[in-house]
């Protein structure tokens, strides 16, 4: 089934600009290659042929923050890594989203101590938290789809306010 079946005789589709822009944002969302610990293994697995995150337009993990829209924080963030994480986030172009993957990134996990941030929401604003230690690739993909839902519901009026 292609778009030509929906075009009709006029060759025209009507949609809202909002819906169009949000659709294009969700279906070419490039995550940043940012593995910090064991969660990165599951993230790689989610990319691989078996789970295949490229079904959702995410086959490219960009090694540069300037080319990516989504930051997947995969692992615990130490106090020394925090400023680096913030700097990478600041280098990403707008609009951008953050997934805190796994327990360590979400709330510190088992590392309740002096060296680890108790949740990366102390460093960057987080859109979706994915629970699990580490979360399975399915869980990560569910998290990504949750971000997609959030993006699809975005209104231009709300963006103008912030």
């Amino acid at each position: 089934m292609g778009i030509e079946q929906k075009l009709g005789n006029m060759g025209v589709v009507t949609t809202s600009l909002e819906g169009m822009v949000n659709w294009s944002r969700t279906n070419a969302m490039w995550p940043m290659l940012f593995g910090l610990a064991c969660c990165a293994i599951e993230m790689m697995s989610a990319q691989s042929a078996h789970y295949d995150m490229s079904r959702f337009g995410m086959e490219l993990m960009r090694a540069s923050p300037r080319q990516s829209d989504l930051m997947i924080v995969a692992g615990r963030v130490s106090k020394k890594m925090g400023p680096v994480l913030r700097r990478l986030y600041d280098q990403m172009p707008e609009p951008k989203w953050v997934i805190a993957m796994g327990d360590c990134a979400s709330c510190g996990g088992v590392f309740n101590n002096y060296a680890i941030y108790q949740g990366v929401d102390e460093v960057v604003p987080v859109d979706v938290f994915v629970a699990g230690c580490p979360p399975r690739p399915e869980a990560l993909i569910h998290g990504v789809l949750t971000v997609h839902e959030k993006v699809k519901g975005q209104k231009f009026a709300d963006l103008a306010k912030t």
Partner: protein
Amino acid sequence: MDKKLEPIIKAVQNKFSAAFEEFRGEVHLFIEPDQIVDALTLLRDEHSFELLSALTAVDYHPQTSPRFHVIYQMTSISKNLSVQLRVPLSGDNPKVPTVTRVFSMALWRERELLDMFGIEAEGHPDPRRILMPEGTDGYPLRRDFPLGYEEPQFTFNFDEIDLGKPYAKE
């Protein structure tokens, strides 16, 4: 204790009047802070202890004098021997002379000593913190350093802890 170790212990004891202790075959020699450089040099040059395999410390907190023991673990690869030198230090303003001129591996180990225990190595060429970021308060491996960093958030205390959380801004 190893038979080969006995003359070496005697030699060190004679020269530095060091107290000697044995625990499960491990030999500890207690040395004064101002003699540690000479003791390490003696062991390295005359008794073929080529390797300083560990440099660390122990905190015996509520005990105040000595509160810390700085530990120099020496290994002789050629003779298959090991001996531990301990330097007892009091709790306020603990300092040891640097041993970087004897063993250059002490460069990073003494920075770790400063970072984790707040024990200063006098004369160290680069006395910065090594593991924690600059501007960290306190010394994490001291016994009086708070164990946890944040109280776990449960249903009953969620809001209370949430108020104090330092959330990031856009």
